[in-house]
Every structure is written in structure tokens, then in C-alpha cells.
């Protein structure tokens, strides 16, 4: 406060002070950072010790928190199990329910009976019975339980019930050793958690039998359990001085950039004050433009805000364009640029708007230049918008129309927001250009606003078509151009008619959204077409070299991995799991290749394998021959050569300390018929398979011709010679490709042709995509519109919130809310109901399909057993699965004894134990069938269980839609898009019409309210235009009659009052004058008598009488003064008032009048001392005078000088005739029929009463300007 007063930090100066302060901080930082670095260098050894201790301590804390969680859950569960297991409350149902509760879903829970049998478990079974007993660690102690795929932190404890000991085993997954490049994969890794928390690399050994590393670059510490026993070892690279200095520099740089950004922002705030004072609008626009461009460039140079962010928003894969050297190279950079662009656009638009409303004189030459310039700019801008939208589609990995969720993830959401911001900015600019063009067009032709717009629109559409044909590579079709131009003209006309209004932005946003989605859809179609070329690349990409590379990389990485090599030494290693581990961590999974990994022992016997998309591979003894000197070879396996087009197998030795301890092989298959990975389960699919996800493989048809004959076909169409005839007549480009259209079975297809030569044979690959149907385009439209409508509604909501004060209790507001409630609630209910119905139908379809499959299986199994009673059960199951093509599992009691996809279960990726709920339902509740949702990673699927009896032996069989996909015509997401797309459009239309209706219905009431307020302020000249019907018409007529009567009565009353006043005054004057007259008369008579009598006392009488006369004359003078004082104006009630507020408040009274009142102020504070009522009356008088002088625009400017406020009233009325100019402030002067001629006189008197004044500054046929001076409050 002291400093504020001392330094006079008022207004903009405070920003300057902050800027100065930041500059000092910046200077200090440049000194301090090198000092910190020096100090760190000098005390490095001490610091390193501290830092290592700190890392050890914090890393241990991270581990300990997990342990605490585990132990706390164990205690909680143990307590509740005690209740559930205690007689007489023992309930198996409650036991199963308890261990399968959602709160324990992160853990693996097993409850064992005193005899060691597992009696309850949840879906994730970490510990098998044989892994629990004998106990690895004492009861109650935590320890790491390792499998090939996962490490758990486990604890086993007892639940003591009378004489029985039940056991509880609880495990928390702590490290997943396999990785899947897949959206469903849930990473679990303590190692990664530590890596992310500290700027170094960690390695964790989940076994107590590892000693600390002897590598001096590393530091190791032990992981102790809750009984302080060693259960593992953590190893990390010690921080280096170089990396420490780098991180200090990085932190210092970030701090300085932060300060610099603050500096820029506060400088901008300081400049805002100066900027407002710029006289010319063009200068203000130019200044804002330069400043914002400069700030944007500075932000970009300092990598702000990207340097403070990580993840999807800064990922160039989500969007990156080379525009302006990378200023939009990521979604966040695009957002910042689009925001700046929007600010500039809004400012330019508003200034254009004001400009065209103000200016009247136009130079024809300038008009021609400007019309032609803006026309060219308009066309180029549309091309620029199209190019930007094209970039959003083509330079992004986001597939906007194929996002799996209704509300997409952050990158897609942010890019949609960017698109909307950019489109809104562009639309405002384009509307601004059209308004300017229309404005200048009026210099030549003026057929009225509407006709001018229509004429120009026609001219623009024609010119646009010419522009289209002039372009070498037009980006959009003529239809799209006509559509966009039409929408912009419509919007511009609306803005022109309605004038400035914040809701204009909502309309612009809606139009921008619709157009941008249409453009997105247009370019997406183009991308889909281009993707045909990508498909041809993909078909040719997996050549021998690449397949060999993947095999080489997979095998070499495997034999370098200590975990893999050490597994060969361990007892009880699950080699199927090991094969899955190698497969999942390699390119075989990342590239979603049809492939396998097999593990052999040193005797070349197959001991484990994992395979997907191909048969279980077998290697012969010969295949192990001819390994190179590194014990490695890649070859074409004889067993598979006949079945696939391209197949390679790699084989490598696994070397132990001094001998070969085993072999690993990997096989990759590539076959034209396997395109699309239909055999690949979704939960393993990486999403980057043979085709880019732009286009659905099922929509493609692929033909390959060798020497003009069909050699291969993909899809359900085998083309006839006639159908593909156009291919032979096609002219190929120098790159040996071409685009053509083919008609097959009366359907149009776009075809990309690629010509290659192999062994002197010409090979043509044709990739065909069916032309899109309208319904599909509508789907795409709604897919994005749902997201856009969310942003539009949020924007609308923000506007309403900002105007809540004006809005909440108004009649219009209440009407609008009522309309919205009545109309939106049923729409939402209907949408939710429809969604529910669709979901239920989809679910029923899945259940029916799965049920049908189970019935087929049951019948097949039973009929096999009937025909072949001696056939063993496993063969029966395998036959049923193979012959029916259905993958299923069979369980005996709780254990799986067969599965068609055994490799997934044998590896431990899927759990082999029967679903506990299914077990309970089928075995305890005796249900015949049981349907449930299960999960693998984050992939949910339906599992259907059924109990069957084979030879009086009970089994459970199960099918699911993870391996047996059930096709639904429209997925829930598809229906969501349609439903919510249509309903969100409906909601926006409802809001629009509700607003229009509420406005329309409430308009007369609002008019009447304002008029009543004006009357209350003393303005009786208000007359409302009446175009209404019914009661409202009568009400307005009544109001008009009332005001007219009031006005008449006021005049009559004033007249009567004046007359009465005069009468009273005359009476009083007569009475008062009479009083001194009598003594005067008597005195004069006495003087005359004395004179006639020649009295001796004449002198004394004269003296006395004259004195009396003088006294009475003085008396008369006093009476005159008193009367004069009585006739004076009432005294002023002075108070402190805010001039701006009074002006704003008063001009609101004229809101319904056909006059536009613009109020500008260059001052924040405008306190004066005045009579509030008289001040309002003064403003009403001046505005009313202007209206009565036919003005349709009044501008009120409030400026502050050193001691005064200058208020300028400028109107565009007919002005004051020269003969009247000198008389306007005289009482009784008026040029109006009903005027009393006291308004300006009273105004002048009021202003003089507060030491102000009013002068007529200028008047002509074009308008009048009054200049008012009012002293500021001291």
C-alpha cells in the first residue's frame, strides 16, 4: 500500500512496475543459475551421496506404499472372511461374492480350505495351490511371486475358525514382463514407475538371491519386506555430473522462459492502455496484429507452452504441419496459433462492423480497388481454409471418423477444438470481407440491402466457378464452394441486419462447425482414396528382406535377454509362457504379424510355443542343421512352404555359460489371403497391421493380374473380363500407377492401379473401394458434430453465465428456460431410451449367437460320443471345435481340460481356472447356462458357460466372443453417433428456436417495461410502435393512450398550475404590496397636509414621512426579492455518482427505440458530484432531442481530461437550422409541436449548477454534436 502510494502505481503503471520486477528477476536468474552449477560442481561428491540416499529412500517409499496397500487389503479381507466363514453364517454364495467384489479386482485372491483345496478365488489367479504349499515365506510375510509373465507381491495368511485354519493368499501385480502394442494393454511396472519418477534408469530383481552390482556406475539397495527380510534388489545408474548440470540448466531455462512469458503478458497488458488511446482504428488493428504475431513468434521460439507439457498434446504424430516453419507442429502449437488467429479475427471483424456503420462517403476508385482486392482475398481464403482442413486430415495419425468412442480421447478432442477455433476465426474474417464488399458495392448500385446481398452472392458464385477452373489443383469441388460461399453470405446478411450482438458468435460457430465438418468429410474421403495407394505399398512392403529383418531382430533380442536365457536353467519353467514373452516383446506382435515362436531344449525337442494366425509350427531335425558360426539361420521351412506364399523361419542357439542350452525359433508368414488379420484376436492386434487404419479392410476388393490374367483375388468378388476391361485401357503415370473408376455388379468403385514387373512379367495390382453412400457421410457428419456441439454448448453456457445478471429474472429468460426444459428433457430421455434399446438388442444378438454355438458344440460332442463311445474326450472336444470352427474351452470341476486356443491358456496369458461366478452358478445354483462379461487386459468380452453331461460325467463348456467374433450390423458406438448426433443437432435447433420464440413473445413486454421506466424518469414523449395482435395490441395501445393522456394532462396541469400560481402570486403580491401602500399613502397625505397648512413642524414631518416612505419602499423591495427567490429552481441534491453507469443505465431506456446508441469511454473511473435525477433527465433530453431530429445513430463519447470529463453527444439527425442555433438555450424556445422549450435550458442550468457547461460544438444537415464538460470528483 505504501509503495503503491509512494510510486503512484495506478492504472497501467502497475503493469510497468511488474514488468520491471520480472526483468530484475530475470537478471538475477542469469547470475544465480551459473552459481548453482558452480556450487554443484564443487560439492559433487557430497551432493551425489545425498542424491543417491534420496533416490533410495523415495524409491523404497514407492515400494512400501504398495506393500502397505496389500497388507491393509489383506487385513480388511481377513476380517470379512472371518464373518463369512464362521458358522452358523457360513455361506458359499457370500464367500464367492466377497472375493469377487470390485474393490479387490486389482488383486488376485485365493481362499483355501484347511485341507489345502482352493474354495474361492477371483478372476485373476496368481498362485496355484502347489505354489502356495509348501509356503515360500512364513505366514504374514510379503514376498515376490514370479511367473514368466508377471511378478506379484504376495502374502499368505491364516483365518482361524475354532479348530480350523483357512488360508488366504493375496497378490498384487507389480511387474508385467510382457508388453503389447495395443490399446487394451494395461502396463504394470514398478521399474517404469521408478524410471518416470527419477532421471535415471532402474532395474529390479524380484528375488532375494541376487547380490549388489559391482559396476561402479550403478548403485544397488535391497528391498525388504514387512519383517525386514530381503526379498529383492533394486539397481540404478548413479546420477552423473553432466546429467545433473543438464537438468539444472533445463530447470533454469524453464524458469527463465516462464518469467519471460510473464514479462510478455504484463507488457501486453501495459500496452493495452496505450493501444486504446490510438486515434485511428486502422492503427489499432495494425498494432494488435503486430503485437499478437510477435507474441506468437516469441512463444514459439521459447517452445511455450510445449516445453511444460508431455504426451499427446505435443506429439507430432497427432498433428504436425510444416506451416510457417513449424508454428503448428503439434496439437498444442496449433491450439495457441488458432487462438491468436481467432483474437485477431474477432477484432478485425468488429472493427469492420463499426467501420461500415460509421462511414458514409466513399471514393469510387478506392471502392473498386477494395472490392476487387477483398474478392480475391475471399477466394484465396476459402482455398486456405480448405488447405488447412486438408492438413488436419492428412498430417495427423488421428482417424477422426473412426474414433472408437463417442467422446474421443484427448488428442482427437483437442484437434476438433482447434478446428472449430480456426474455422470460427476464418468465418468471422470472411463475413467481415463480405460486409466490406457490400458496403463499397453500394457506391455503385444500391438496390436495398437484401437485393445487394443476393446480387453479390450470384456474382461471387460465378466468379468462384471461374476461380475453380483457374486453379491447377482445386482443393474443393464447385458444389462445396457454392455451399460455403452461400453460408457465409447468409451469415453476413444476418449480422448486417441484426447488428453487433454476442450471440452472433454462436451463429458463426455453428456455421463454422457445419462447414468444417463437411470439409473434413471431403478430405477424409480423399484420404481414404489415397489410402488405396498405401494399401498397395503395404501389400508390397513385407518383402523377404523385411521379414528376415523382423526374424533376425526377434531372435537376437531374445538371446540377449538374461531373463529368457536364465529361464532355461530354472526348474518348472513354463516354456509356452516363455515363447509368448518373446513373441509379445518383439516386432511380431508390434507389427501384428501372423507368426510363431517356439522353444526347444538342447536335445532339439519342442518344449514350448506360441503362435497366432498360423498353425503350430514343427521343425524337423534337418532344420537344425546348417546353422552359421553364430548358431543362427533363416530359412524357408519345408513343412509350411506349400501352405503360404511367403514364409520364413529363423532358428538360433541359446548359449549358456559354456554350451548350447536350447534353441528358439521364430516363423513369419505372409499371405495375400491373410490380409486384414481376421485370424488375429483383437486383444493382441497392434492396430498397425497390414493396412493403415484409414479404411476398413472389409470394404476393399483387391485383384492382382499377371500378364492380364487374374492371379489373385481378395474380397467377395471375382471379376469378369468385361468388368475390368477399363484397366487395360488405362494410361499409367511415370510412377506406374493410375486411378480409375470401375463398375462392378452395378456398384461404383474407385480403383488404384499399381503396375510392377517381376521376372519380365507385368503384374497389376488393383485396389478397389466402393464409393460412399449418403448414410455413411451422415454418420461421419454426426460423428464430429457430437463433439462440436459439446463445444458450442459450452460456449453458449459461458455466454449465458456471463450474462446471468441480465438474464435470470427477465420474462424472456424465464420463457427460454421453460421452453428448453419442456423440449430438451423429452429429447434426452428419448435418446437415452433409444440407446438402451439398441444396447439391449446388441446384447441379445450376442447371447443368441453364443448360445447357438454352445448348442452346436453340445450336440456335436454328444453325437460323437454316441457314434464313437471309445473316443477319448480330448479328441472329441478337438474334433467338435475343428469341424464346427468354434473356439471353446471345457472344464472338469474348476480346471480347464481343453481349449481350442490352448496356446493362450498354456502361456498363462488367459487364466485356466473356471470363472468363479460361473462355477458357483453352474455347480451350486445348478444353472444350466451362465453368461458373464470377462476381461483380458482392458478388452471386455462375453463368455457363455454351459453345463453338459457326457457319459454321466459333468463338464462345463464355454465360448466367448474374444475368439469367436459376433458381428453386429450396427455397434453401440455407431448407434451412439447417430442418436447423439441427431439429438445434439436437435438440441441446438431447439435452443435456437426457443431463443427466437422467447425473444419474440417477450419483445412487447420488454418494450413496455423500458417505456414504463422512461415514463418514470419523466420522459412522456415515449410512443410505442404497435404491430402486435390481441391483448398485447390492446395493452400497447392502452400504454400509448396513457402516455399521451399523461402528457396532455401534464401540459394542462402545468398550464393550470401556472395560472393558479399567477393568480395566487397576484393575490399575494397585491396583498403584500397593499400593506406598505397604506402607510405610504398615509405618509404622503400627512406630508401634503403639513405642506398645505404651512406647519412649523413641516421639517420634522418631512423628515419622518420621507423616512417612512423609504422604509416602505425598502419593504416593497424585500417583498420583490422574496418573490424572486420563490420563483427560483428547486435546489440540487448533490451526491457522488458514476457518470458511466448513469449513461449506460439511461441509454438502456432507449433499447427498443429505432435508434442505435453507441457509448464509448476511455476512462475506467468516472465519478462526479451531481444530482442523479437531473443528470438522467439531461441525458434523456439530449437523446430524445436527437431522436426527434430523425437520428438513427447516436454516439456518446466520454473522455477524461485533467480535471474534467468531456461528454460528446453526436447524432446523425437533421441538425439545427442556423436561425435557431443561438436560441436553443433560451427558455421557451422550441422547434417541436408539443415541446415546452425548457429541456436544453434546464440542462444548461443543471450543468451550471454543478460547475459544468454545455456547448453546441457542431451542427449541420448531417448531424449535431453537443459538448458537455463536467468537473471530476476531487
Amino acid at each position, binding site marked *: 500500500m505504501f509503495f503503491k502510494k509512494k510510486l503512484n502505481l495506478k492504472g497501467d503503471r502497475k503493469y510497468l512496475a511488474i514488468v520491471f520486477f520480472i526483468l530484475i528477476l530475470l537478471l538475477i536468474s542469469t547470475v544465480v543459475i551459473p552459481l548453482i552449477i558452480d556450487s554443484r560442481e564443487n560439492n559433487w561428491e557430497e551432493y551425489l551421496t545425498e542424491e543417491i540416499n534420496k533416490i533410495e529412500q523415495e524409491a523404497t517409499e514407492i515400494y512400501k506404499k504398495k506393500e502397505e496397500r496389500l497388507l491393509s487389503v489383506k487385513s480388511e479381507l481377513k476380517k470379512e472372511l472371518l464373518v463369512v466363514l464362521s458358522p452358523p453364517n457360513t455361506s458359499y454364495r457370500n464367500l464367492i461374492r466377497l472375493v469377487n467384489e470390485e474393490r479387490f479386482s486389482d488383486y488376485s485372491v485365493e481362499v483355501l480350505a484347511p485341507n489345502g483345496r482352493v474354495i474361492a478365488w477371483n478372476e485373476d489367479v496368481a498362485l496355484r495351490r502347489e505354489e502356495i504349499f509348501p509356503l515360500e515365506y512364513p505366514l504374514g510375510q510379503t514376498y515376490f511371486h514370479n511367473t514368466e509373465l508377471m511378478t506379484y507381491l504376495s502374502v499368505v495368511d491364516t483365518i482361524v475358525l475354532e479348530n480350523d485354519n483357512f488360508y488366504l493368499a493375496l497378490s498384487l501385480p507389480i511387474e508385467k514382463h510382457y508388453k503389447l502394442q495395443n490399446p487394451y494393454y494395461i502396463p504394470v511396472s514398478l521399474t517404469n514407475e521408478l524410471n518416470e519418477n527419477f532421471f535415471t534408469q532402474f532395474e529390479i530383481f524380484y528375488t532375494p538371491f541376487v547380490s549388489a552390482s559391482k559396476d561402479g556406475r550403478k548403485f544397488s539397495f535391497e528391498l525388504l519386506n514387512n519383517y525386514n527380510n530381503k526379498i529383492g534388489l533394486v539397481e540404478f545408474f548413479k546420477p552423473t555430473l553432466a546429467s545433473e548440470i543438464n537438468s539444472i540448466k533445463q530447470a533454469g531455462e524453464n524458469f527463465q522462459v516462464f518469467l519471460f512469458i510473464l514479462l510478455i503478458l504484463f507488457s501486453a497488458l501495459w500496452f493495452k492502455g496505450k493501444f486504446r488511446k490510438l486515434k485511428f482504428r486502422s492503427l489499432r488493428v495494425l498494432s494488435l496484429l503486430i503485437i499478437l504475431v510477435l507474441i506468437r513468434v516469441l512463444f514459439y521460439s521459447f517452445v511455450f507452452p510445449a516445453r511444460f507439457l508431455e504426451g499427446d498434446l505435443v*506429439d507430432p504424430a497427432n498433428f504436425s*504441419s510444416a*506451416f510457417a516453419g*513449424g508454428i503448428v507442429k503439434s496439437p498444442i502449437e496449433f491450439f495457441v496459433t488458432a487462438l491468436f488467429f481467432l483474437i485477431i479475427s474477432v477484432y478485425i471483424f468488429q472493427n469492420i462492423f463499426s467501420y461500415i456503420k460509421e462511414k458514409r462517403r466513399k471514393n469510387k476508385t478506392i471502392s473498386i480497388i477494395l472490392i476487387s482486392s477483398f474478392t480475391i482475398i475471399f477466394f484465396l481464403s476459402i482455398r486456405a481454409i480448405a488447405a488447412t482442413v486438408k492438413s488436419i486430415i492428412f498430417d495427423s*495419425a488421428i482417424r477422426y471418423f473412426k474414433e472408437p468412442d463417442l467422446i474421443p480421447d484427448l488428442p482427437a478432442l483437442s484437434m476438433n477444438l482447434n478446428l472449430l477455433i480456426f474455422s470460427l476465426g476464418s468465418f468471422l474474417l470472411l463475413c467481415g470481407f463480405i460486409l466490406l464488399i457490400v458496403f463499397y458495392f453500394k457506391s455503385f448500385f444500391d438496390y436495398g440491402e437484401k437485393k445487394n446481398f443476393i446480387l453479390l452472392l450470384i456474382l461471387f458464385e460465378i466468379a468462384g466457378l471461374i476461380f475453380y477452373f483457374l486453379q491447377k489443383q482445386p482443393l474443393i469441388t464447385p458444389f462445396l464452394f457454392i455451399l460455403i460461399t452461400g453460408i457465409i453470405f447468409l451469415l453476413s446478411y444476418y449480422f448486417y441486419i441484426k447488428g453487433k450482438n454476442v450471440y452472433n458468435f454462436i451463429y458463426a460457430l455453428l456455421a463454422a462447425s457445419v462447414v468444417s465438418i463437411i470439409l473434413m468429410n471431403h478430405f477424409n474421403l480423399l484420404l481414404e482414396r489415397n489410402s488405396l495407394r498405401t494399401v498397395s505399398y503395404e501389400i508390397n512392403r513385407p518383402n523377404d528382406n*523385411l521379414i528376415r*529383418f523382423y526374424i533376425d531382430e526377434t531372435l537376437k533380442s531374445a538371446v540377449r535377454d538374461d531373463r529368457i536365457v536364465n529361464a532355461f536353467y530354472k526348474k518348472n519353467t513354463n516354456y509356452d509362457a516363455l515363447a509368448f514373452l518373446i513373441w509379445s516383446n518383439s516386432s511380431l506382435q508390434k507389427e501384428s504379424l501372423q507368426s510363431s515362436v517356439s522353444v526347444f531344449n538342447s536335445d532339439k525337442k519342442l518344449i514350448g510355443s506360441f503362435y497366432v494366425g498360423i498353425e503350430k509350427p514343427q521343425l524337423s531335425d534337418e532344420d537344425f542343421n546348417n546353422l552359421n558360426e553364430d548358431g543362427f539361420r533363416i530359412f524357408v521351412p519345408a513343412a509350411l512352404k506349400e501352405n503360404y506364399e511367403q514364409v520364413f523361419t529363423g532358428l538360433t542357439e541359446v548359449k549358456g555359460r559354456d554350451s548350447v542350452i536350447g534353441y528358439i525359433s521364430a516363423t513369419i508368414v505372409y499371405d495375400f489371403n491373410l490380409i486384414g488379420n481376421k485370424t488375429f484376436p483383437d486383444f493382441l492386434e497392434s492396430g498397425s497391421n497390414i493396412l493403415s487404419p484409414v479404411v476398413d479392410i472389409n470394404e476393399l476388393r483387391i485383384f492382382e493380374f499377371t500378364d492380364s490374367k487374374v492371379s489373385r483375388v481378395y474380397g467377395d468378388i471375382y471379376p469378369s473380363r468385361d468388368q475390368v476391361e477399363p484397366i487395360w485401357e488405362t494410361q499409367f503415370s511415370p510412377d506406374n500407377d493410375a486411378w480409375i473408376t470401375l463398375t462392378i455388379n452395378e456398384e461404383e468403385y474407385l480403383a488404384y492401379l499399381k503396375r510392377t514387373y517381376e521376372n519380365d512379367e507385368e503384374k497389376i495390382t488393383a485396389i478397389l473401394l466402393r464409393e460412399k453412400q449418403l448414410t455413411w457421410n451422415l454418420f461421419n457428419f454426426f460423428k464430429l458434430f457430437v463433439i462440436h456441439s459439446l463445444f458450442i454448448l459450452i460456449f453458449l453456457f459461458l455466454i449465458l453465465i456471463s450474462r446471468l445478471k441480465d438474464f435470470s429474472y427477465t420474462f424472456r429468460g424465464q420463457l427460454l428456460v421453460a421452453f428448453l426444459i419442456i423440449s430438451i428433457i423429452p429429447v434426452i430421455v428419448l435418446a437415452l431410451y433409444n440407446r438402451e434399446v439398441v444396447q439391449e438388442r446388441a446384447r441379445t444378438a450376442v447371447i443368441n449367437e453364443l448360445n447357438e454355438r454352445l448348442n452346436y458344440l453340445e450336440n456335436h460332442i454328444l453325437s460323437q460320443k454316441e457314434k464313437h463311445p471309445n473316443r477319448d474326450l480330448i479328441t472329441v472336444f478337438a474334433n467338435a471345435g475343428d469341424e464346427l470352427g468354434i473356439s471353446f474351452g471345457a472344464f472338469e470341476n474348476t480346471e480347464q481340460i481343453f481349449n481350442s486356443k490352448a496356446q493362450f491358456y498354456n502361456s498363462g496369458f488367459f487364466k485356466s481356472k473356471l470363472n468363479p461366478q460361473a462355477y458357483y452358478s453352474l455347480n451350486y445354483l445348478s444353472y444350466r447356462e451362465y453368461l458373464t462379461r470377462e476381461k483380458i487386459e482392458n478388452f471386455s468380452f462375453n463368455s457363455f458357460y454351459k453345463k453338459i453331461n457326457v457319459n454321466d460325467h459333468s463338464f462345463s463348456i464355454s465360448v466367448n466372443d474374444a475368439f469367436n467374433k459376433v458381428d453386429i450390423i450396427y455397434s453401440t458406438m455407431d448407434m451412439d453417433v447417430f442418436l447423439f448426433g441427431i439429438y445434439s443437432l436437435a438440441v441446438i435447433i431447439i435452443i435456437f428456436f426457443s431463443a427466437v420464440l422467447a425473444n419474440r413473445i417477450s419483445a412487447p413486454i420488454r418494450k413496455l417495461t423500458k417505456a414504463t421506466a422512461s415514463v418514470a424518469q419523466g420522459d412522456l414523449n415515449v410512443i410505442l410502435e404497435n404491430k402486435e395482435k390481441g391483448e398485447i395490441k390492446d395493452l400497447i395501445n392502452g400504454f400509448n393512450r396513457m402516455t399521451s393522456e399523461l402528457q396532455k394532462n401534464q401540459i394542462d396541469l402545468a398550464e393550470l398550475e401556472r395560472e393558479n400560481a399567477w393568480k395566487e402570486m397576484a393575490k399575494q403580491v397585491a396583498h403584500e404590496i397593499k400593506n406598505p401602500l397604506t402607510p405610504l399613502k398615509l405618509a404622503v397625505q400627512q406630508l401634503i397636509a403639513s405642506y398645505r397648512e404651512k406647519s412649523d413642524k413641516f421639517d420634522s414631518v418631512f423628515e419622518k414621512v420621507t423616512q417612512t416612505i423609504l422604509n416602505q419602499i425598502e419593504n416593497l423591495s424585500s417583498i420583490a426579492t422574496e418573490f424572486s427567490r420563490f420563483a427560483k429552481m428547486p435546489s440540487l441534491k448533490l451526491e457522488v455518482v458514476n457518470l458511466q453507469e448513469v449513461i449506460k443505465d439511461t441509454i438502456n431506456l432507449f433499447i427498443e427505440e429505432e435508434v442505435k446508441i453507441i457509448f464509448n469511454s476511455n476512462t475506467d473511473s468516472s465519478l462526479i458530484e451531481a444530482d442523479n435525477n437531473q443528470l438522467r433527465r439531461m441525458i434523456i433530453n439530449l437523446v430524445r432531442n436527437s431522436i426527434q431530429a430523425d437520428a438513427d445513430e447516436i454516439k456518446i463519447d466520454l473522455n477524461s481530461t485533467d480535471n474534467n470529463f468531456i461528454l460528446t453527444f453526436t447524432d446523425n439527425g437533421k441538425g439545427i437550422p442556423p436561425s435557431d442555433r443561438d436560441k436553443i438555450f433560451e427558455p421557451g424556445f422550441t422547434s417541436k409541436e408539443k415541446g415546452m422549450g425548457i429541456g436544453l435550458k434546464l440542462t444548461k442550468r443543471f450543468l451550471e449548477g454543478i460547475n459544468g457547461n454545455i456547448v453546441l460544438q457542431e451542427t449541420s444537415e448531417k448531424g449535431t454534436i453537443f459538448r458537455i464538460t463536467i468537473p471530476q470528483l476531487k
Partner: protein
Amino acid sequence: MVKYLIKYYLLLLIFFPGSLTPAQENNFLNKLDTSRKIARAQVVFNQIENAISSGNVSLLSNYLSSQTYLSLSNGIRGYYSSNQAFYILEDFFKIYNVTSFRFDNLNSAENTPYATGVYNYEYKGKRNSAQVYISLNKSAGGWKITQITIN
């Protein structure tokens, strides 16, 4: 009045060149290549080797095609436009700081030239290595990279 209008005119002319040269059209990476003569695949691989070993993507940009397949060890995988590929690789080289790189197997076959090598890098103070596979394709504009795999 005239001055006023001319100011507006100049203002818009200054402002608009930016938006008239939009991203997709301003694809400088593609246009740089139009007049370049087709070099031998071997030469192109040498330049790619230099670019990767110096971590300088600009040297690589001439060879990025409109649809380049990238498969990187940080999880990036798929087809990317030349603009995307440029910035993705720039970010990758910045984070996985190259310590050395060379092609150890180079096949300049006429139709399907490819090269493989080892990318040694430093990440969070730890040295590591990744296998590299790069293949080229000849188009009318010259050799273009069809695939970069760094696993």
C-alpha cells in the same frame, strides 16, 4: 479517407499471405525434391546414415515420402505424412540421443533397396542400442524412404 482505406488495404495484404500459404500446400519437404536428380540408392543410404548418426532430420527430409512407414522403439508405429515424419523423427532423435550409428548391411538392389544397422543411443543416462531397418522406393521424384524401423 483515402489514406484510411489504403491503410486497411496494406494491413490485410500484410496479414493474409500467412493464411494463403497453408500447411498442406506449403509442404516444403516435398517441394525441395522436385528438381533433384535421381542418385544411386547407395548414395542415398550414405546420406541417411549421416543424417541419423548426426541426429539431423533436415538431412533426411528430402527422402521422406508422402506416406512413410515409421516403427520406433518409443511406440510410434504407422504411416505418416512427410511433415509428421519430420517432427516425429526430430523428437525421437532429441530424446534417444544418438551416440553412434552405421549401416552394417546394405542392399542396393534395383527394386527393393534396404539397409539395416545398429542405432546406439543414450536415454536417461543409460546407453542402449536398437536395430534399424530402412527401405527405399524409386518414384518419379527420386528415391524415397518407404519405411524406417528403429526397434
